[in-house]
């Protein structure tokens, strides 16, 4: 099944509302590339310890744009064909070969089922398709995210309790 028109429309809307600058999907023969060309402020979604506010980019006064205290990702030239650098991923080296587990929705990232519980997975842990790696919560909907691949967790990219965007990478997995 290739992408349907309403799905593409939905994708555009989601990317538009998100802080993602460039988005690419290849699904059974349909390839869609969405790029933002506007001169909008780049917003870093990397761990933001000092700023508790999650700023909504929709239906919000334009003056309230981003607040980021961590080194922001350098806005790269948008015309480059290279895959856009993903926010919050510091290393470049082998990342292309690593599988990214991404967030399927906007919400709060939790590494453990309860504050005093062990994390679902740690760096170095072996996972399979069904292993639960984290929870993303929005409006008290708890979405238990499965790895969907077999491999080893190489890096946890976000902090517990951090707000994550749609499509934001959460883990890097070396597939096996």
């Amino acid at each position: 099944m290739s992408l349907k028109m309403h799905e593409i429309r939905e994708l555009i809307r989601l990317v538009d509302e998100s802080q993602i600058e460039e988005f690419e999907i290849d699904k059974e023969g349909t390839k869609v590339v969405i790029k933002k060309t506007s001169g909008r402020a780049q917003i870093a979604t990397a761990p933001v310890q000092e700023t508790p506010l999650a700023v909504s980019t929709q239906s919000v006064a334009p003056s309230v744009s981003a607040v980021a205290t961590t080194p922001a990702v350098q806005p790269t030239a948008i015309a480059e064909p290279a895959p856009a650098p993903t926010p919050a991923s510091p290393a470049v080296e082998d990342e292309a070969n690593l599988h990214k587990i991404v967030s399927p929705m906007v919400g709060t990232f939790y590494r453990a089922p309860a504050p005093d519980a062990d994390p679902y997975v740690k760096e170095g842990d072996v996972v399979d398709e069904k292993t639960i790696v984290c929870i993303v919560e929005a409006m008290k909907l708890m979405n238990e995210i499965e790895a969907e691949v077999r491999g080893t967790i190489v890096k946890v990219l976000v902090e517990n309790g951090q707000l994550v965007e749609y499509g934001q990478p959460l883990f890097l997995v070396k597939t096996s």
Partner: protein
Amino acid sequence: MGQNIRDRLLSLLIQYQPQFVSGEEISRELGCSRAAVWKHIEELRQEGYEIEARPRSGYRLLYRPDRVAPEEIAYHLHTKKFGREIRYQEVVASTQILAHQWAREGAVEGSLVVAEEQTEGRGRLGRSWYSPPRSGVWMSLILRPPILLTEASHLTLLASLGVKQGIERVTGLPIQIKWPNDLLVHGKKICGILTELRGEQDQIHYVILGMGINVNTPEKNWPEELRAIATSLAIELGGPVHRASLIAAILEELEEVYDHYLQSGFSKIKAKWEQSSGIIGKQIVARTPQGVITGIAEHLNDQGALIIRTDRGLVSVHSADVSLK
């Protein structure tokens, strides 16, 4: 099959109550022998029903225990899908756990897990939920919504509307919704809704709506630390509530809200939620994992996130404990 005959037998006895219904009529209605009728009467007695049997008059129901068994719910239920399949147990660790198992086995939409008691009832992020025997409604409803995963958070808000309407219909109590979906009476919590989703990428496999409602818990039974923040319908009403009819009313209202949402989308649900919530336009404090936010609750966005006007501008909140300031 056996379950079905028992459902219908109980329905007959309830319809005739306080009159007798003859053994002959029961066996004709149910299409089974009079010996089989006797066997089912005995089973009901073992569950705590008091049934008088008199020669030449038949059977008469004297006492119905307060149970949330399928035959009790079915008698009150007028839905198409919700609660049409029920798994019922006296005691479970958590109805959510059973519902996850059942959903993985292929449970149809609307399947319901219900129990008299939970020993490990849970709320958000591993918090426990006090679920003593026969005093509340502890249940989990399995949904398979044909929507995008990014829209699934709508379900938690529409669930709060459905449950609110069901409780109001049965009790007449004024229920307020605290964002995103706790239900309060006079500022104290009577219901929590925990929604859990399994899916991949943009596809939803299933969603479980777990509901805990404090119905007949007497005040003296509450653990000390809960008394200030939680209450039960019976305390607020001054008398007990029939739990099986409450479940039926909630399932009916939930089904209606859900069907409406699937047909017409989120906008009307959102408007209704904003009217019902009691926080819109008020000064609130939201304790989020990213910090504390204070401001005025403005409205919901299209995902159901709460938009708060702070002195730094508008802020959207996806996860928080919200309280009035």
